[in-house]
């Protein structure tokens, strides 16, 4: 698509600015097809909006300066103008055009993001559960579970199945793609894919209470072989997750990184029932 090329060309100085200004560029440094789609849309909409903003600013500045009250125009009495049909139709039409120009790619991207970015490839499935205040990742095909970090293979679509054991959170890895809510009693899915190896910061984006700021995790993308090796390592070196430990994880609080070679299939993760002990609000 040539819009994409134009967008990339115009956007490069933006991106450069952010890379120069700091380390993590987040949304503006996409590392996967989903994030790229969204990045293109963002830059495109910024350009589109600038097309409106710049002329409005210029006209505004001009009018306010030109028609200011001065000693010379003391006797000037402004005309009483009721309106102007033609002009008013004109500036009803302009926003309609701008909005249409944005609506079309928006709808297209909305549908695109519902499905896997690489439909031909079998996706890796990861079940993500947010809890008070930790992220739990389960790999049903591999049978392993991690807490507060995840590994994914590069160039393979990953299907995240999202739910929550406690408050509603939002699963967000800015460089890989936009966020989606995690909700107790609901299962949502979202596809992400990394196109480059690297470690990407992820976080809970929706407020969940006292230790919300600690709900961060890292997603490491590496080659399929390295990923397989990592799975194998977890399988062989890490302990099994017992029901007791799984219950322990449901107690509100923070934990560090954890990994388990297996997890109990039938354990229902929830913190929303009577008798779950709450942490005191203050130390």
């Amino acid at each position, binding site marked *: 698509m040539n819009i994409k090329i134009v967008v990339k060309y115009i956007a490069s100085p933006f991106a450069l600015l952010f890379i120069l200004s700091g380390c993590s560029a*987040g949304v503006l440094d996409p590392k996967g097809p989903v994030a790229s789609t969204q990045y293109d849309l963002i830059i495109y909409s910024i350009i589109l909006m600038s097309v409106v903003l710049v002329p409005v600013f210029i006209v505004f500045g001009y009018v306010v300066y030109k028609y200011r009250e001065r000693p010379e125009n003391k006797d000037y009495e402004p005309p009483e103008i009721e309106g102007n049909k033609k002009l008013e139709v004109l500036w009803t039409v302009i926003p309609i055009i701008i909005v249409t120009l944005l609506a079309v790619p928006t709808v297209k991207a909305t549908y695109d993001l519902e499905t896997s970015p690489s439909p031909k490839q079998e996706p890796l499935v990861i079940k993500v559960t947010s809890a008070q205040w930790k992220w739990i990742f389960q790999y049903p095909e591999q049978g392993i579970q991690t807490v507060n970090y995840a590994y994914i293979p590069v160039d393979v679509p990953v299907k995240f199945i999202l739910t929550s054991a406690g408050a*509603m959170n*939002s699963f967000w890895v800015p460089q890989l793609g936009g966020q989606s809510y995690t909700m*107790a009693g609901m299962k*949502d899915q979202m596809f992400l894919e990394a196109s480059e190896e690297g470690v990407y910061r992820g976080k809970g984006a929706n407020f969940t209470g*006292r230790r919300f700021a600690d709900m961060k995790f890292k997603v490491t993308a590496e080659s399929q072989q390295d990923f397989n090796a990592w799975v194998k390592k977890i399988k062989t070196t890490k302990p099994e997750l017992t029901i007791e430990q799984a219950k322990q994880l449901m107690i509100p609080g923070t934990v560090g990184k954890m990994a388990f070679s297996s997890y109990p299939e039938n354990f229902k993760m929830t913190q929303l029932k009577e008798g779950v002990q709450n942490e005191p609000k203050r130390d």
Partner: protein
Amino acid sequence: MNLSEIKDFLIGEFFVTGDPTIYAAQVMIALTTIGIIFTLTYLKKWKWLWREWLTTVDHKKIGIMYIIVAMLMLFRGGADALMIRTQLALPNMDFLEAQTYNEVFTTHGTIMLLFMAMPFLIGLINVAMPLQIGARDVAFPYLNALSFWLFFSGAMLFNLSFIIGGSPDAGWVNYPPLAGGNLSPGPEINYYLIGLQIAGIGTLTTGINFIATILKMRAPGMTLMRMPIFTWSSLITSIIILFAFPVLTIALALLTIDRLFGSHFFTVMGEGLPEMYVNLFWLWGHPEVYILILPAFGIFSEVISTFARKRLFGYKAMVYSMIIISLLSFVVWVHHFFTMGSEPAANSFFSISTMAIAIPTGVKIFNWLLTLYKGKIKFTTAHLWALGFMPNFVIGGATGVMLASAPADYQYHNSYFLISHFHYVLISGTVFSIFAGLHYWWPKMFGHKLNERLGKWAFWLFVVGFNVTFVPMYIVGLMGMTRRVYTYEEGLGWTTLNFIETLGAYAMGIAFAIIVYNIYYSARYGERDKTGDPWDGRTLEWSIPSPAPEYNFAHVPKVKGLDAFWIMKKENKTKKKEKEPYKPIHMPDDSGQPFMMSLFFFISGFGFVWEWMWMGILGLVGVGVIMILRTFDKDEGYHISSREIKRRERAAREDRIDE
């Protein structure tokens, strides 16, 4: 219960303890309260307070009370904002702990929207709208007083949580399950629910009152299409209130019932749906945004047209665009949670409906520009606020259109990009309009102008500070900084931007202090408005003396077109009017009932907050008793004699007649 149990309860649960800032604030609040009581007693002003203010049904006095309370709430919300910005100025700051931070941003949002912005606008509507349509008062003066006192007791109940029981801490949206009984037991969230409920009833009754007033109380000759644009905006806003607020009532009530009586509306246990709350909340919440912005548009239209010395360009288009905005406001609520995993068809629909709001809004912006075009623009403080609104609001609006694109929103949502967007819209829209309106109508309320020099200082400091605060927020949001985190780590590249934001916030704080000082300064040294028409105004409120007499219009004005007073001035009718004989004017009786009823609502609310059912029910019984008393009320009112009117009009217009 023995003594030590009572002590444990008081220190452990009832009074908020733990933080030195809280102790300091508690001491301050206690001292201020004692100070107020002492001063009132010393000056023997209790009776005056009761007679002139607590029992008044005069729309102007009620408006002023709304504005005073809203200013206090602006102070509280602003102090919260500065605490937030101080905590975030540097990474790993140790100023507020997580829990306190959570409370502070929750109260910041709730207070600014519901106890500051909306009441401030309602206050301005109360002062100006009946005067603009040539009415003697609103349709239901008694109900108007009740609305105010309900808002007041709701606001006070909410604020009481700061010293008794603990502040709400689940964000201003208060989503379950976080705000449900499992994860947030205790009185904190109850304060939010019941405080908002009481204030919300007050808002609903205000809406009804304003609609009836505008539909039935207009001066002869004032057709709908001759109404001042601010009155139009008040009418449309009130209609939105009428249809949106009952939904909030239900959302709050159901969550309250969940928490107090163990029902399962929003609990996952029992197959309730937390998502239902989110939908109900935003079904009210998005129209609420337009309740905050449409009166602002009205104020800007009046101010721009007055100080450009020109009729508002495209008056009809302005009216229709507001009506369209109000209709659209009810079909966009899902854009607050695109990330909830709705169907792509749903997200696409709500994306497009949201973007569509840009169309009528764009029309308004261009019409304001054309109103200025060929005008004679005076840079008064009020006008500066209105002019400052335009470029800033356009930035907020443009980012709003960007946010409306659902797939892109997955990246903006919950980030500082979103925070910056709605602050751009709400500050440059609502807050600027509040200050514009305050400077514009101040002479009509108090009979003197606010100082222009101080006003302009405050304006420039505020506008610069505002941009310094919120431009970096857009960037830091795109870098991945999420809202509601109490701290962040070093090395993310966020530090400089956050520090700059904090500087801007303090500049806005100083600007607010200047405005408050200006109020004091102008009360003492301000220029007295002897003409009643200090700005060469166009609408009827400027045809009567400043401050407006309690009966408003000695003669009911006859309206011949849009900008009725401008036409009168052109025809030079203002002097001739003096000769018409005065007739006695019927006035409504003052009443202490609204105040008492709200006091009982407060008591009842406090009982339910603590789940002391006896107290809650007792309060409601009190409310019922006053309602019964009211049904027996005949509301006879009294008359001001024509001689008295003549005397007062003479006194007020002395200077003008001398000229």
